């Protein structure tokens, strides 16, 4: 049986097959399209999801976002893990 994913600094997140990031032009928003569901992304969630390329670790993503947005790394890392864990539980992020 498949095991549930626990997101940590070493995790390397990606969007699994069947999940797609798309700009929803008529409603002027970014969405994650998933099986029979969709999730509207706010600006922070969008930046995090864009980093889920299957190459960067959560640690690297936190470093990157912390530098780009001049925010404390600890806070950024915590937010990234919370968001990705939630998406992993919903089946729209894999790691």
């Amino acid at each position, binding site marked *: 049986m498949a*095991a*549930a994913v626990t997101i940590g600094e070493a995790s390397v997140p990606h969007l699994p*097959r069947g999940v*797609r990031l798309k700009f929803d032009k008529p409603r002027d928003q970014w969405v994650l399209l998933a*099986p*029979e569901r*969709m999730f509207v992304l706010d600006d922070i969630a969008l930046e995090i999801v864009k980093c889920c390329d299957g190459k960067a670790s959560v640690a690297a993503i936190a470093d990157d976002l912390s530098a780009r947005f001049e925010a404390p790394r600890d806070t950024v890392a915590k937010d990234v893990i919370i968001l990705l864990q939630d998406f992993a539980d919903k*089946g729209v992020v894999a790691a």
Partner: protein
Amino acid sequence: MNAASPHIDPPLAMLAELTYRCPLRCPYCSNPLEMTAASGDMDTGQWLGVIEEAADMGVLQIHFSGGEPTVRQDLEDMVGRAEVLGIYTNLITSGVLIDQARLEGLADRGLQHIQLSFQGTEEAGADRIGGFRGGHRKKLETARLAGEIGLPLTINAVMHRQNMDDLESMIQMAVDFGAKRLEVAHVQYYGWGLRNRAALVPTREQLEHATEIVEAARERLKGILVFDYVVPDYYARYPKSCMGGWGRQFLNVTPSGRVMPCHAAETIPDMTFDSVGERPLLDIWEQSEAFTRFRGTGWMPEPCRSCDRREIDWGGCRCQALALTGNAAATDPVCEKSPEHERIAALAAAEAAAGTDEFEYRRFGQGG
């Protein structure tokens, strides 16, 4: 949203009912009681035109359904076109007509996801409910193939009084097949389901037990299996937000091209529906009588109009109001604020206790 502000966003999703043909005869089928024969189905070119219009409007997801959509050999072309246009594609299927080559072909054209329905987990019982011998085995094979190909899979477990004991094994089956999502869908009472309600409606105790099982499994399988739980709202306090509100998020195109706010809307006797090809899809969505009649809150009677839940459940379900009161504009009688509420709950309980187990199976109205 109200009558004074006519702007409406485009629909998020389109249900494309490619045909009403289906080898199964499920006694709760959502298709209408009177079905048009296959000769009334739109051709490939017409459907591709609908898909183009949907993409132009900003539809994000297309659910290919039926009937059984894989009856059509041009399904691959439709999936391919939708994917090229950037629309997320989902196949809602019984799975009994699909072999490996077909499933691989669909995946190659970009199909994102497959929703596979099951009537039970035990072969004889499942085949009896579906009215198609050998159907259950074929479904098991299709689920296995989806896993082999890596195509994301949702199992749709249609639950009612006669298969409620299969719920635990249904959950296990979904996990074993590597499905990422399980829809535990109690039968809804429209069309064939309404016709067979006395044979399908669960007791309140059965429903409560099923809800406990789902809640426990949801917690236990967090991160492994996502649950979507559809309850029979006859026993509920409030009605469901049917289709996310009439004409707000969703449109349905029938095999012959009629455009409807939901798959049961045809039961509303004085409502007229426009067809694709005769009027632009966007215009039908924004302006047509069928889509605007129950959109927003302006149409609502009391107690809905002043209810603080009016933009939560959007008045519940119009087809259910029609089926249970004879008036599509009435307060959905499953709501505890409806004067009919007690009568409906009592009706369900009485049918669950005394109803027959005999089904009237789905069939084509005109000998199809």
